[in-house]
């Protein structure tokens, strides 16, 4: 069932076509894909009117890519990440994660998919306050059914990586915001997921901690992880290889940024300016369409 990312090849298929996901997808298109979204729509019914949080999003993300998704508040970034992360189900459309079609899966299989393939980093950390840093990092490994010795070594290695091994018995409330976010990063990467999803990981942090967290994201990328990072901050988006712009539930821009990619360490202060005014600097078709609203 689980194929290595490199082997998975995904096709642009017409939604009506009924295909056995992996094999057919691999056969039709010659591209590797970690994530394939196809005409994903998410509609919230609010009384009489419908809110189109996602309005027909199609997207391919390759293994080892570092993708930033940027857009103004309410544009549908989080909704998109929740779809990719199988935390929510789309109103219509199909999607594949690492060759597995999420749109066809049952509750328990989605839980296993999240557990084995995905690592989440949330803006609000989402750590369990009653558990220590170590126990938080260990939790996904418990649900994975790993034996204790294995869990311990993986969790300690992950905490080591984020530089918090000495704080592993602290409760989240005994840690700073930046440290808590590092614990949540350790939790996301402990199970060696295929894909790391980060929704505004620096949103609740001061700029210094933000820089630290971004440095960690770069390190993870260099180690070969696929990363999807959501932000409304252009200076952060510019650190990614690829910048996808979203507005009103639609993708309005998709730019290869690998030439201009900035490391976390060398972000100039000017880059911390308002994303909207800097948006024009982005090359490519309709970069942040209608930004001057």
């Amino acid at each position: 069932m689980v194929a290595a990312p490199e082997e998975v090849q995904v096709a642009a298929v017409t939604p009506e076509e009924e295909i056995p996901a992996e094999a057919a997808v691999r056969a039709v298109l010659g591209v590797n894909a970690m994530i394939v979204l196809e005409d994903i729509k998410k509609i919230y019914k609010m009384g009489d009117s419908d809110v189109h949080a996602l309005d027909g999003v199609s997207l391919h993300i390759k293994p080892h890519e570092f993708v930033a998704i940027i857009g103004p508040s309410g544009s549908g970034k989080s909704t998109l990440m929740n779809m990719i992360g199988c935390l929510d189900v789309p109103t219509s459309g199909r999607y594949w994660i690492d060759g597995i079609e999420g749109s066809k899966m049952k509750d328990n299989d989605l839980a296993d998919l999240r557990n084995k393939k995905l690592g989440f980093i949330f803006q609000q950390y989402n750590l369990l306050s009653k558990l220590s840093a170590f126990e938080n990092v260990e939790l996904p490994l418990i649900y994975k059914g790993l034996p204790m010795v294995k869990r311990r070594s993986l969790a300690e290695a992950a905490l080591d990586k984020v530089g918090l091994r000495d704080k592993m018995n602290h409760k989240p409330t005994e840690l700073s915001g930046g440290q808590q976010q590092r614990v949540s990063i350790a939790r996301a990467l402990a199970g060696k997921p295929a894909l790391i999803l980060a929704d505004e990981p620096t949103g609740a942090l001061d700029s210094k901690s933000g820089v630290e967290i971004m440095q960690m994201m770069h390190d993870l990328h260099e180690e070969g992880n696929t990363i999807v990072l959501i932000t409304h901050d252009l200076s952060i988006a510019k650190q990614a290889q690829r910048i996808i712009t979203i507005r009103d539930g639609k993708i309005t821009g998709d730019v290869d940024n690998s030439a201009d990619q900035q490391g976390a360490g060398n972000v100039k202060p000017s880059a911390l300016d308002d994303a909207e005014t800097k948006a024009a600097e982005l090359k490519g078709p309709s970069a942040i369409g209608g930004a001057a609203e």
Partner: protein
Amino acid sequence: MMFSKFKQSFKMAMKSIVGNKGRSALTMLGIVIGVASVIILTGIGGGATKEVTDTISEMGTNRITVMMTRGANSSRSIRLKDMQSYLEDNPELVSMMSPYLTAQPTVKQGTKNIVTSLDACDTSYEQIGNLTVESGRFFSDYEVEKRKKVCVVGTYIMQELFGGVDPVGQSLKINGSLFEVIGMYEESDDSTEGSGDDKITIPYTTATRLFSQNINTYYFYTDSEDTVVAATNDLNRYITAKLGTDEGFRVSNMLSLLDSLNEMTGVLTAMLAGIASISLVVGGIGIMNIMTVSVSERTREIGIRKAIGARTTDILSQFLIESVVLSGLGGVIGIVFGILVGKLVAALGMSSATQWNMVVLSFVFSLAVGVFFGLAPAKKAAKLNPIDALRSE
């Protein structure tokens, strides 16, 4: 694999219980109160029943009373001779018989005199009436036959008439006649006026002459409780035949009295159990409230757990174990507390007997309530989309 999953869920549940002491304590409180009150109240009910039963057993459930209700001097009374021959003819039914009469004479010693309750009977009454002589002796067949003026007294008589000194060998006057005190009973009550110790016993032969009264009551004694009912019915038949009527007398036994009293105390116990089950239900509602609130409080936690890969069953087994442990622990504390309070009540002089079937019943009930109300809201939360659970505040 199954076991290690269970072990993990168990560990997680324990962490959650210990990590939320206030909430855990509140949840248990409902069960503790419910279980304890069932145990205490049914204990008191059971104690009352036991007290009544014990008192009657003490009086003797092996005893049959034949009583002439038309007055002892009526010509339609059964004769002593008939009763004696019944005893001789029916050894398989009855083993002892004593004529009996009672009076309230004035008893005098020196200048002091009191009114006490007098029993007049045969020697067999020492056993039929379950009497224990502590000092001296009970009167003998010879003394009964010769209408001797001898008496056995209770400890109240000793206190009042003999200044607390053992009266055996002394004498006193009953309605003016001089009697020798040949024995004194063991204290059965508290040696006060009107208590079980305020009594005096003399041979029935002496009494019929002293009070010029005929015997109106006979006590029969059976060796086994099993023959009490049969002997009662047979005596009824016998006396009816002798008198030519079934009126003017009554044959009764303690067993039938015990039955009707048991019925009464049974109603009392049922009433107390009813009140107790109300408190158990109220306790259950308490658990339900706490569990419902804590699950909605914990919806976010459930969302986080689901986001990082917990299956619905993982969440449910954690909550199930949590509520089993909490209600089980609450039940055990409730049992201990209930039994202790029962002991305290007993120590304060009220009777209390722990009803073990109620202990088991209330424990099982509280466990069921805890598990049901612990699981139902968790089930709802575990089925949420992870993102909806995560968004909840």
